């Protein structure tokens, strides 16, 4: 029991410390740099340690140092406990939610350098997924709702009218889009017959024609839209909307603000991981089966360890692709108006996701699956 717990903790730490946090930190730099490229300017390229400059990639270190040394201000009339708790509530759930993401195949330690049998995997092995549960996606929705408290409480506890407006906007937006998210995944659930992300990835397999994007294209679009709305970034950044209500984190400074800031980027990574898992075949590479590459009649045999390493890298590549894509959207589209956003959520995207579920169910019934 202890071993299982330790192993889980180790995998979680490994995923968070080796992949999520570095990628999220680098995204703070990448966002500025990518937006600069889109806007014909240079962007941050000077942060350095001595002569080590590498395109200013160390900008996030400078950022972190700045936030650490800034005064951590608490407004006099703020609700002190909730004010302190809010950033944690916004940040922690996303990190927890990473537990359901399968970021690599099942590792069979005894068969590392052998070629696996293409039709049956050896029993046992360690799955590169921290929390495997039949209710995986539901777990994510439950956890994501907690993150909602973080933003709303931040707005309420700050004792600031603008922050309150931002917090209210955040909660109304979350409510409108979480339903859509659930219904969009329901389409995938009907097709794959499971809510467990790992099983979804297994179902999709290495054939792109079998991936979520192909079998549920509408659900992909709807889910992606709702997921971007969940990250509260443009065009869905009404809780922040700096020229309007300035944002629910208006009164935060120093690390309190830094936590919200980083939470946003961790959410980007998470949305990328979720899209990869549910709709883009997870860690699978087109044509790469557990014993090697198949392209038509052509076959190239690979040992288990090479396949595993390739697949983990495929997962990382896909996640980074989705991160890039989200940054691209953020710097292209303007912001919605709150009522238009809610209108879009309840009156357009929600009926579409309902229709998607109905049509999927009807087609499945017709095919007799």
């Amino acid at each position, binding site marked *: 029991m202890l071993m299982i717990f330790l192993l889980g903790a180790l995998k979680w730490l490994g995923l968070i410390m080796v992949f999520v946090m570095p990628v999220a930190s680098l995204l703070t730099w990448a966002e500025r740099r990518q*937006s600069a490229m*889109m*806007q*014909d*300017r240079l962007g941050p390229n000077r942060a350095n340690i001595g002569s080590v400059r590498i395109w200013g990639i160390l900008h996030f270190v400078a950022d972190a140092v700045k936030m650490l040394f800034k005064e951590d201000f608490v407004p006099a009339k703020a609700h002190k406990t909730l004010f302190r708790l809010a950033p944690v509530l916004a940040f922690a759930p996303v990190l927890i939610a990473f537990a359901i993401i399968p970021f690599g195949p099942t590792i069979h330690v005894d068969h590392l350098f052998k070629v696996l049998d293409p039709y049956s995997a050896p029993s046992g092995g360690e799955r590169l997924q921290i929390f495997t549960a039949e209710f995986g996606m539901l777990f994510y929705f439950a956890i994501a709702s907690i993150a909602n408290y973080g933003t709303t409480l931040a707005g309420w506890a700050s004792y600031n*009218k*603008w922050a309150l*407006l931002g917090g209210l906007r955040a909660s109304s937006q979350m409510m409108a889009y979480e339903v859509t998210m659930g219904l969009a995944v329901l389409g995938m659930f009907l097709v794959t017959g499971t809510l467990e992300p790992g099983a979804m990835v297994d179902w999709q397999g290495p054939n792109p024609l079998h991936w979520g994007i192909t079998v549920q294209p509408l659900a992909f679009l709807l889910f992606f839209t709702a997921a971007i709305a969940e990250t509260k970034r*443009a*065009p869905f*950044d*009404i809780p922040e*909307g*700096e*020229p*309007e*209500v*300035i944002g629910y984190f208006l009164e935060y400074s120093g690390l309190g603000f830094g936590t919200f800031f980083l939470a946003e980027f961790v959410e980007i990574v998470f949305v990328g991981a979720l899209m990869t898992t549910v709709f883009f075949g997870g860690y699978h590479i087109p044509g790469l089966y557990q014993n090697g590459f198949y392209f038509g009649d052509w076959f190239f045999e690979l040992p288990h360890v090479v396949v595993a390493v390739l697949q983990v890298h495929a997962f990382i590549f896909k996640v980074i692709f989705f991160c890039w894509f989200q940054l691209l959207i953020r*710097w*292209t*589209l*303007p*912001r*919605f*108006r*709150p*009522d*238009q956003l809610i209108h879009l959520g309840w009156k357009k995207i929600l009926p579409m996701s309902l229709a998607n579920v109905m049509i999927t169910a009807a087609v499945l019934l017709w095919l007799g699956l």
Partner: protein
Amino acid sequence: MGERRTFVFGQKTAEELEAEAGLPTEPMRVNMGPSHPAMHGTVRMVLTLDGERIRESDIELGFIHRCFEKEAEYATYTQIFPYTDRLNYVSPMLNNVGFALAVERLLGIDKEIPERAQYIRVIVGEMARIADHLTCLGASAMELGAFTPFLWFLKAREWLYTLLEEVSGARLTHSYVRVGGVVADLPTDFSEKLGARLIDIARVLNEGEGLIKDLRIFRDRMEGVGVLSAADAIAYGWSGPCLRSTGVDYDVRKDHPYLVYDRLEFDVPVGTRGDNYDRFLVRMYEMRQSLRILRQALDQIPPGPILVPDYAVTLPPKAEVYNSIEGMIAHFKLIMDGIRVPPGEVYSTTEAANGELGFYIVADGTGRPYKCHVRAPSFAILTSLTKQIDGALLSDLIPTFGMVNYIAGETER
């Protein structure tokens, strides 16, 4: 037959439902500004909000009053030019031109300005107009969250400022125009440089427009927001692109031509609905017309002097100052006393970027104006903002205020 009652679901308004629930509500009063990201130029709005809907708004000006009008009474006519730079600080050239024309009309020499100087004034003025519209549209797009067109537009504006810097020596506060002409001739290769930049700017305009003009989100934010009828607009004293967006075809350059505008071919774009989207389009098309004016002006500009050779108004050349007693005296009198303007008063208007920029000057025969009043276009436009936003959403305030193009320098003179 008993009484027949019809129940319609989903037909109740939010107010009716709230009244049934008996929820206690009270409006929230918030201070938007003077320190608020959207209140560029420091203005304060006291808003009474019902949810996010604006029930009442009160707009307060005067946070950065500059005393331009009072200062002008203590400066010679030439010394006022640097002050006019800071009126609409995004397009200082147009203010320069407007003030110079007012003084020249008072002196009665406005028909004697050398042709080359008039063309130069048109060229630098239209460049400033493009720069102003680029800033206004870019900043408004940025406030709606579209950051990319903003920076593209600012890139184009920087090209113009660089050229204006070559002309006048200063990037922003040019002080380039003088009573009786302009202070220096254009640089030798200016025409080629500007001609090349005009092509670049036209490209940037197309790119920026392509990104947001037909974008659903952008149109939803702009269309039908901040509507004002043509009659109201005239009653409030609107002018410029904002007035034309309501459908009134009035442009000082066309209706009361000054400089050489009557020799140049250009159209005046006019809106139909008077909403923010129309104001956006009018400004967008106006920039294209300005490019057209610039191309023609560059073709037509004749060689020749750039100042009237009247040494009671303009400084004599240095050679004469050092070598002749008349030149020396003229120089001394102009520097010490300023230009002696005969007693009288004048109201002179030009088409600045925001609308009709008027200077009302009363002269008493000395070298300094007795009274100098500025009719600032954005002041008149701002007065109607309350009418435009009352009952709208808080988010609608942002594009409406952005399209007013409130410039504190000219409003709070």
